[in-house]
């Protein structure tokens, strides 16, 4: 995980958010990814999203595994604790961290290899457990750090730089998440910041596991003719199924309520997600519609994007566990230890 620190540049007129921080306060180390990498655009969108949400950086935990995408947690919010874990195992570390401290905002950054190959099992079970976190897959269909092997999201017929053709069926994280019962499922494109930022904000505010699959082209190994995860392909085939707008809590609602098919979802913290389906008959609150529509797009060679499914009534891990509201890591010892008198009486059970 290479990172270079940026020189602190402070512009006196830089705009501040409601907690008095500028966007620069949400930045991290200098990226060491290739010039033009889609991941850097996602990082920029994340900085924007966190800044707009007025989240104190030290109240967020940045989680990742191994790979190009996982490196990016070093490139934003240097005042947040970061955890660059083991390849494919970020979900379990985040589950444990969240179990211990439910009050932080957890953002996991992963890639297609990290999530769909080596970490497939952990991703699936974190979804099932409904761990309260935003899980971003920076999906480029390829292993970058080891120079261009196919990942499990590579499309059939996709060509590698060496000319090999992938014949194995791809795993679509969006269909996977819908199948496993995820309560927030979205897809976006790293080159589409206007779409990505509100989705990230909604995902960060979601009560439960929010999965965002971000197609993020690899300029070095998978941005050529024949790749379905290239900038050119995405520009031609991206179909925005749902337009998303996010209105944070305590912000003035400026969005005009003119759309006839506008779906307004009130989030757990009181903020709102406003969704406008561009495909006729698309209902972002119906798992069946979402599943059918995403599959129909796949068949047509299109990539469905937007906040594809949301259900804010789901029960996250702590709801299912019936955990106390105080983070477990902050419970005072005297409420945890039953003491000597209890042990003395317990001993009678073993006599």
């Amino acid at each position, binding site marked *: 995980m290479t990172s270079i620190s940026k020189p602190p540049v402070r512009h006196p007129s830089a705009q501040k958010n409601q907690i008095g921080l500028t966007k620069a306060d949400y930045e991290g180390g200098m990226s060491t990814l290739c010039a033009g990498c889609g991941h850097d655009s996602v990082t920029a969108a994340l900085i924007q999203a966190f800044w707009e949400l007025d989240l104190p950086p030290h109240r967020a935990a940045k989680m990742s595994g191994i790979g190009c995408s996982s490196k990016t947690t070093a490139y934003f919010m240097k005042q*947040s604790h970061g955890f660059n874990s083991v390849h494919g*195992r970020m979900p379990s570390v985040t589950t*444990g961290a969240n*179990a211990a401290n439910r009050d932080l905002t957890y953002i996991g950054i992963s890639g297609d290899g990290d999530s769909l190959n080596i970490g497939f099992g952990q991703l699936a079970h974190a979804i099932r457990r409904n761990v309260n976190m935003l899980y971003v897959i920076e999906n480029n269909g390829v292993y970058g750090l080891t120079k261009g092997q196919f990942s499990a999201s590579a499309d059939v017929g996709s060509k590698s730089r060496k000319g090999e053709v992938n014949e194995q069926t791809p795993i679509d994280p969006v269909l996977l998440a819908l199948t496993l019962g995820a309560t927030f499922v979205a897809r976006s494109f790293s080159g589409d910041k206007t779409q990505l930022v509100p989705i990230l904000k909604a995902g960060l505010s979601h009560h439960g596991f929010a999965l965002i699959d971000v197609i993020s082209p690899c300029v070095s190994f998978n941005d050529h003719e024949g790749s379905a995860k290239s900038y050119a392909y995405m520009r031609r085939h991206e179909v925005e199924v749902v337009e998303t707008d996010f209105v944070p809590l305590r912000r003035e609602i400026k969005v005009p309520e003119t759309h006839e098919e506008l779906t307004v979802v009130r989030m757990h913290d009181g903020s709102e997600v406003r969704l406008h389906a561009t495909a006729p008959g698309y209902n972002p609150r119906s798992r069946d519609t979402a599943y059918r529509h995403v599959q129909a797009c796949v068949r047509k060679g299109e990539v469905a994007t937007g906040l594809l499914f949301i259900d804010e009534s789901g029960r996250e891990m702590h709801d299912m566990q019936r955990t106390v509201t105080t983070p477990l890591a902050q419970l005072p010892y005297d409420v945890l230890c039953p003491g000597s008198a209890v042990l003395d009486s317990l001993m009678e059970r073993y006599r």
Partner: protein
Amino acid sequence: MNRVNDFAFKSATVNGTGSASANSLLMEAIFRMGIPVTGKNIFPSNIQGLPTWYEVRVSRDGFTARPPTIDLVVALNPATYAQDIASVCSGGYVLYDSSWPLDAKLVREDVTILGVPLGAMCREAFTRDRDRTLLRNIAYAGALAALLQIDMGVIETMLNEKFARKKGLLDANHRALRLGYDYAQKHFSCPLPIHCAPMNETSGSILIDGNTACALGALYAGATVGAWYPITPSTSLMDAFKEFCQEFRIEPETGLHRYCIVQAEDELSAAGMVIGAGWMGARAFTCTSGPGISLMQEFLGFAYYTEIPGVWINVQRAGPATGLPTRTQQADLMSMAYASHGDTKHIVLFPADPAECFTLTVEAFNAAERFQTPVFVASDLDIGMNDWMVPRLQWDDSYRPDRGKVLDVAELEQAKKFFRYLDTDGDGVAARTLPGVSGKGAYFVRGSGHDKFGAYTEDGAAYREVVDRLTRKFETAARELPKPVVIEQEGADVGILLVGSSDCAVREAVVHLHEQGIVADSMRIRSFPFAPEVKAFIDRYRTVFVVEQNRDAQLRSLLAIETGTPRDRMISVLEYAGQPITAGALVTTIASHLAGVSA
């Protein structure tokens, strides 16, 4: 020879038929009579239909190791009649179900065969098939009560306690007990020369298994996060922890849980959860066994290098591979001590019995936070799943968790700048911060190369500086971890080293060796890395034995690696067939080695 309160019996049954409750009933009754007693459950990796045995040792001298010989066998499993009858010592007894004839070929001249028509009596007395099967066990308990003079009043009281709310079952159990008891009284001369007589040697003791005691340790240490994947023989540990939490960790006002137990999808995930929770500042643990330890290797090395606390309770079973899941061994010593790739080392604590499972589990949580690293509690199936007689567990209410060097907001505000891996006082331990506390304390946990400031590095010198500090940290740990327990005798010229559950057999063997003129001291090592006293002990004796329960003499290898003692200087005494080690085997090996040397 006086055999009152000094004998062993075993029942040979089929698993899933309810014999376990009869066996524990007998054992607890003897315990309540004030007589020292131990039980070893030898069970199959199966739910129903395979042979299972339960050995009970009655020892007025307080020996708790696996019995050296079996004086009486209750043979209720025709599939194992031959081996069960063969396992009784000469002059011993076989109690079998005479509802069906015993093959004449199996009859031994040197043992007394006692036939009790258990099946026929139960068929006549009870109507439901289930009762007829299950109560046959209580009937043999009744017969044994007569033959071995186990107090019927005590057994009946125990039945009353157990079935207090199930009147129908209570009556049936009493009747079955009486069937066996009356038959034995009528047909045999009771009691046998091997029998019980009340003592007053158990009033300060309890009968408890190590998994329950570890769970109590985790409860009292203040653990709040448990992550695990089911695996024999560790499963009952997390089950027990959950039950204790349901009793003692409920917020009174809300009924909500002051704990979070996650059943993971596999052991890799369980390890990741422990590490995530430890990083956040919760006391977190997992329990597992050999195959789980193998799966957790990568994460263990990660936690070692990134310095995150956590407790790993390893209830060892016989390996390699799936091995013998329901048999005991101490065969994970190497894979715990140096778990994971690269230069790694881990703290391992070795409880000898359930009482120490409790105290060392508490200690493990302290050590994990003080040294910011994974800590193993190396239990095994024998300790974990068998009921041992140990002193009552006690708790000191002045105990407060040792959280190690954790900087709070005030300390961070005072500090000029925070660097995660900077050792400021020379003990090899750097201060850490917890997420969510302050932006000033934020740092990046990375398994990749990092310098003492916590920044990524590929620079050789900066990398070495950190890993050399880790060496220093473990040197500090070696000095501060629980000390070995040494038992010395006047004029000893033999030293015996051991860990864990070999303790009871070694204690007993030392007594028998003394009777043969061999005077031995023993050192029970309680922690790895080894305390400085360990090398001094080895150097003190002309002959040094290392007792352990694995094939490859792993403890001896660890001693050779860590203390520089040549391997040949230490003589291995090994037991690795999956059964707990016995004093008899130790005495034979040690005595014959010494005889060979002097000849």
